[in-house]
């Protein structure tokens, strides 16, 4: 579902969201702070997925770039003692280069073909990292000391900063001419080409931007949890939940993936505690029902409700 044409109105919601994010660490205990870090980190993943999706390309390769970020940061620490910030910068560069190569060779792929190619890319990286255990620690995983000496409030703000960066990227991409070009590319690529939209450049550029954000998220993740194995760093769940959060919240917008991620991650955390065993079954049911009965996502429902008023 396409978002309604953006009009100039007071940015009440973004400001409120930013304020709530900023004061959150001061009003909650350590457990909720940890949940907060998780939600913010996954919000970056969901929104960066949506940024690429706006070109019409459905990627299942998020896990690959996330894992690339995790291992860039961890190896940079192992070899040069790099901390979280240099680790994130390196991860961004590595992910960007990988995206540049992958984006260039998969340019002609569309729809499910692109999805499978990106998925295959992530799986290849996972098995390679597992196989070359001399360099990567293999299936036994790799560790780093906690960032900022274990100060979780500082970690929270770093992850929040990464999300702000992602939101900023989303706003730039969602602004005026670029947004029109993207909508055209998505709905009718031939027309976009004919109108002189540089579709190839836009696709690759957004793939690079999206992937480097994911790479940074991976670097922040390993420095936060301090340990990761390939199964986890390249977990397909990373790709899938980014897709799910965006669709559940509402596609091709900044608010949709953020809202979808917040709701799904909170629900997942709540279920994890209350329904100890097999809780993802409820998660799956919610998904099925959401698709069947609210295909425009949460944001779509809110929009419809607003227009009735």
């Amino acid at each position, binding site marked *: 579902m396409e978002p309604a044409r953006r009009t100039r109105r007071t940015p009440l919601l973004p400001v409120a969201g930013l304020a709530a994010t900023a004061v959150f660490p001061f009003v909650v205990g350590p457990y909720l702070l940890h949940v907060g870090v998780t939600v913010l980190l996954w919000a970056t993943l969901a929104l960066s997925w949506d940024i690429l999706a706006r070109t019409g390309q459905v990627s299942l390769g998020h896990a690959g770039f996330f894992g690339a970020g995790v291992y860039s940061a961890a190896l940079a620490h192992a070899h040069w003692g790099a901390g979280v910030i240099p680790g994130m910068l390196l991860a961004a560069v590595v992910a960007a280069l990988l995206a540049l190569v992958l984006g260039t060779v998969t340019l002609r792929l569309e*729809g499910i073909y692109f999805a499978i190619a990106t998925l*295959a890319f992530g799986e*290849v990286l996972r098995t*390679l990292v597992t196989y070359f255990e001399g360099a990567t620690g293999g299936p036994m995983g790799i560790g780093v000391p906690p960032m900022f000496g274990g100060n979780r409030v500082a970690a929270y703000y770093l992850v929040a900063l990464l999300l702000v960066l992602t939101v900023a990227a989303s706003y730039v991409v969602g602004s005026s001419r670029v947004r029109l070009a993207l909508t055209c590319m998505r709905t009718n690529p031939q027309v976009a080409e004919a109108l002189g939209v540089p579709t190839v450049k836009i696709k690759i550029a957004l793939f690079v931007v999206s992937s480097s954000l994911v790479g940074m998220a991976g670097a922040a993740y390993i420095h936060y949890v301090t340990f990761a194995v390939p199964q986890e760093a390249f977990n397909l769940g990373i790709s899938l939940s980014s*897709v799910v959060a965006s669709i559940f919240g509402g596609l091709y917008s900044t608010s949709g993936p953020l809202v979808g991620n917040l709701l799904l991650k909170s629900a997942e955390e709540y279920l994890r505690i209350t329904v100890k065993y097999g809780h993802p079954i409820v998660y799956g049911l919610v998904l*099925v029902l959401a698709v069947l009965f609210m*295909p425009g996502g949460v944001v779509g429902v809110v929009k419809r409700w607003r227009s009735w008023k």
Partner: protein
Amino acid sequence: MTLVQALVNGILRSGLYALTSSGLALSVGVIGIVNFAHGEFLVLGAYLAYWAFVLAGVDPLLALPLGALLLFALGAGLYHFAVRPVLAAPELNQMLLTFGISVVLQNAALILWRGDPRTINPWYRSLPVQFAGVSTGLGRLLVFLLAAALVTGLFALLSRTRFGQAMRAVSQNREGAAVVGIGVNRTYLLAFGLSAALAGMAGVMLSTVLYAHPMLGLEFTLKAFSIVVMAGLGNLTGVLWASIVLGVAESLVGTYVPRGSGLADSVFFLLILLVLIARPKGLGAR
């Protein structure tokens, strides 16, 4: 291990790939639905065979018709209540729906049967068969032959019967098929049921050469997807070739590369990536 042995192992392995993937090719090609729950049908088939063997002593290969029937019913039911309503929705929503179904089925299996692999040992499972210096288990040979027979049957069904013709017509041109009096919705329902039944039968047979486990579903979904995409959407003959190519490639790497079994999956996906880069619409595309 000789080269011939490695090739034979790969080809034997490709039988179940072909059966599973041709089922997925039906739902993708005929209905146009990208079904992430396809592997879950296979898992259900495997558990069905396990319980039939453990509780009633029924040989897994004799449980094949039962597996086909039950999974056909499940597939038809899922089509009617979940898939049909989203047929007109964007592809993404369809993917999300079937992904949700897959999550539900996978976790239901985890809750019911826990996460430990369940193995059964029918008498033919590890009975050695030798021919011209090549050896294998009778179970794997039987499974391959049965899978080949079933795939042949599927091809005959598609080319010789009215139902098969209807399915091909609908996949080529939905409106045109409706105009000449083919019940599109009914054909979709049968195709989806058949697709689930094929995966279910593959699962029943898988239990005799591997084991039953809730997490097998995702692995097989991904492999089946890759095969279907490599073949080119809706190209059933291509599915056979792609299955053999991938089965043999996995086997060769597992045999000749040190610690190669860990790399087999990598080769699988690397091949897919390369094929897609070279032929963006799959190997079978014109």
